[in-house]
């Protein structure tokens, strides 16, 4: 059913706030887990087992179904040295691939620039949500930030369609001529035109889309639906980004974490079904990550910021399985009460950049990193 050979796309789902690793991939076979998590734990009989030691959170049914099809790679113990427990700093580290110094360019922004150095396609990278995440930010690289695909564009608050058309037309003419102007006016002109063009093109995506899949009403599912619409409209979008949260479960964790994963797993399940229906399962890979995991010991109602987390890669081209090592819960091996990571997140980035997007990884992630071998050759 696959038609044209299309370029590979990366879909990123960022879990914001610090997803609790221990309650996502649960070490239910390890007594120390229950020792440390006397309240905030998943009982053995509730876990969805992957093997004798580990299981998924009970809300992750759709992910388990994909796991059974061999499409889910679980990267255990992912992180970086000298873990930082500040949301902003740690997320910045993941976004810029710079754990040591302050990075200034987003790793995906660099990727987009390398894929489209002349900026020929303003939709090479699209963010679903308002405000561009640092991961996609590089000066001069155009990335649309779509809050709502149906209404994305200029003057969304103008209800009268005719008035809006006239206003857009006037805008287009005002931003139209750039010849012989000073550099700033030229930049504004080009950028305005890009924005109009991007909006015009993006607006065609929902109309071109047809699918039997029904996405849930929550924001992540709707964003993934928009991602699917844009992806399947063949607009050349190679990087599609969105985020969900808040995963910062300092209290009342069991209920909120369950609900969040219900949404995440459900949305991913729908998206994968959608890809399958379109025959594009092998053309997109999903990366799911969070800025850190949470502390080993709970605080009686939730868990606090920790380190060392889990990431997922999901897709038809993924070699499903467990990668990395599940961190030890033995006290001597912890970092100040936190899980010790055992593989650098940049390994995953490098693999995606080289083996999926066909780019030169070292220049983007500032170094050489050993790959896990998650993407089928």
């Amino acid at each position, binding site marked *: 059913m696959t038609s044209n050979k299309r370029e590979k796309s990366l879909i990123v789902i960022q879990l914001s706030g610090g997803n609790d690793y221990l309650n996502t991939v649960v070490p239910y076979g390890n007594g120390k887990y229950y020792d440390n998590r006397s309240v905030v734990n998943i009982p053995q009989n509730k876990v969805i087992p992957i093997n004798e030691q580990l299981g998924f959170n009970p809300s992750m049914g759709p992910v388990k179904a994909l796991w059974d099809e061999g499409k889910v790679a679980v990267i255990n113990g992912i992180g970086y040295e000298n873990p930082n427990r500040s949301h902003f700093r740690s997320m910045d580290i993941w976004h810029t691939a710079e754990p040591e110094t302050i990075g200034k360019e987003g790793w995906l922004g660099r990727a987009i620039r390398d894929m489209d150095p002349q900026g020929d396609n303003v939709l090479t990278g699209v963010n679903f949500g308002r405000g561009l995440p640092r991961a996609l930010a590089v000066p001069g690289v155009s990335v649309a930030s779509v809050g709502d695909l149906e209404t994305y564009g200029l003057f969304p608050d103008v209800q009268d369609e005719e008035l809006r058309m006239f206003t857009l037309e006037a805008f287009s003419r005002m931003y139209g001529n750039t010849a012989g102007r000073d550099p700033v006016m030229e930049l504004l002109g080009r950028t305005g035109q890009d924005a109009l063009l991007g909006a015009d093109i993006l607006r065609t995506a929902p109309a071109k889309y047809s699918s039997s899949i029904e996405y849930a009403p929550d924001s992540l599912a709707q964003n993934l639906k928009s991602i699917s619409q844009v992806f399947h409209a063949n607009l050349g979008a190679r990087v599609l980004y969105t985020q969900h949260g808040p995963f*910062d479960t*300092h*209290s009342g*964790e069991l209920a909120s974490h369950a609900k969040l994963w219900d949404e995440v797993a459900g949305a991913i399940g729908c998206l994968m079904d959608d890809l399958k229906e379109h025959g594009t399962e092998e053309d997109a890979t999903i990366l799911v990550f969070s800025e850190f995991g949470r502390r080993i010991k709970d*605080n*009686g*109602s*939730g868990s606090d910021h920790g380190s060392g987390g889990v990431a997922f890669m999901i897709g038809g081209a993924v070699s499903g399985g467990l990668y990395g090592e599940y961190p030890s819960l033995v006290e001597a091996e912890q970092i100040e009460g936190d899980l010790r990571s055992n593989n650098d997140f940049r390994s995953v980035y490098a693999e995606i950049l080289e083996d999926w997007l066909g780019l030169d990884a070292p220049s983007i992630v500032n170094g050489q990193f050993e790959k896990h071998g998650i993407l089928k050759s």
Partner: protein
Amino acid sequence: MSTQTRSPGIALDYVKTIGIVNNGFNGRGFANPYDIVVGKDERIFVLNRCDPARAAAIRIGICTMDEDYLGEFGKGNGTGDGQFVWAVAMALDSQERLHITDEHSNRVTIYSLSGEYLSHWGKSGSGDGELNGPAGIAIDSADNVFVVDQHNSRIQKFTSDGKFIANWGSLGSGDGQFNLPWGAAVDSDDNVYVADWRNDRIQKFTNDGQFLAAYGSSGEGEGQFRRPTSVAIDTDGFIYVADWGNERVQVFGSDGAFQLLLRGEATISKWGEDYLASNPEEQAEREVSNLKPELPAHLNTPYHISSQTEPYFWGPVSVSLDGRGRLYVTETNRHRFQVYQKH
């Protein structure tokens, strides 16, 4: 500097602090609490105003004096039935139904103490019975409901399901006039007291709105207020005032004579202890820290001092009493309440 002054008329002993900040997820703790009522069975009901980022968690939390968290209820943020936008204050009627004001939605919402939404009433406007920013609420022994109608500068009297009876007040600083009033309370004679917020005073009225007395003036001295937000009167007639702008609580005799003031002396609550036990490095540093430090000269307003001195009241927005002589001071910026015992 002592946080409490003693006087022959009344003594208030600090008992404990209950609370911990809750980021908005279900579970123990509070999120910018704005008022407390205590039920006949001594369960403590805490109104969490919450901030917009955590508005989905707007709810009423329930706990006991032994710091057991019993749960919460509410339907979250919004204008639908049982929902709140800017919840302000609560009062119990004789059936122990809980009446809660919302100054944004201009309504009073009624819940049972078991958490069941019952009804709401209230219409925006300035006509009789219409509301513009209902803040404080108090219910007398005949189940008359007094609502502080802040932007209409008046007090309105209703039946317990919201039928208009009477109102009084206008904008100004004279007797019986108000300027953005906030809290209200009734005493055992069914007189009505109002925290006349921007006039920096408390006013006392008969049940029909006849002016009886005004207490206080602007300032930081004893018997002076900066933006008092709440008032409560015990069965002996002592008047308790939440002197919000001065970050303190003052107590007066029934004649209005100053008795004592409280600055707050919070200690670690049980939920706080649980947290510190799971975070030993933080606990270790806290133990060797001075939680009442000397502050540089420019940080000398009560607000700034309280922001840096954890035991002091910070944002004491409400004073509540129970049937056992206990005073509850709700601190919105500290997500807790301090309990004092009168004897």
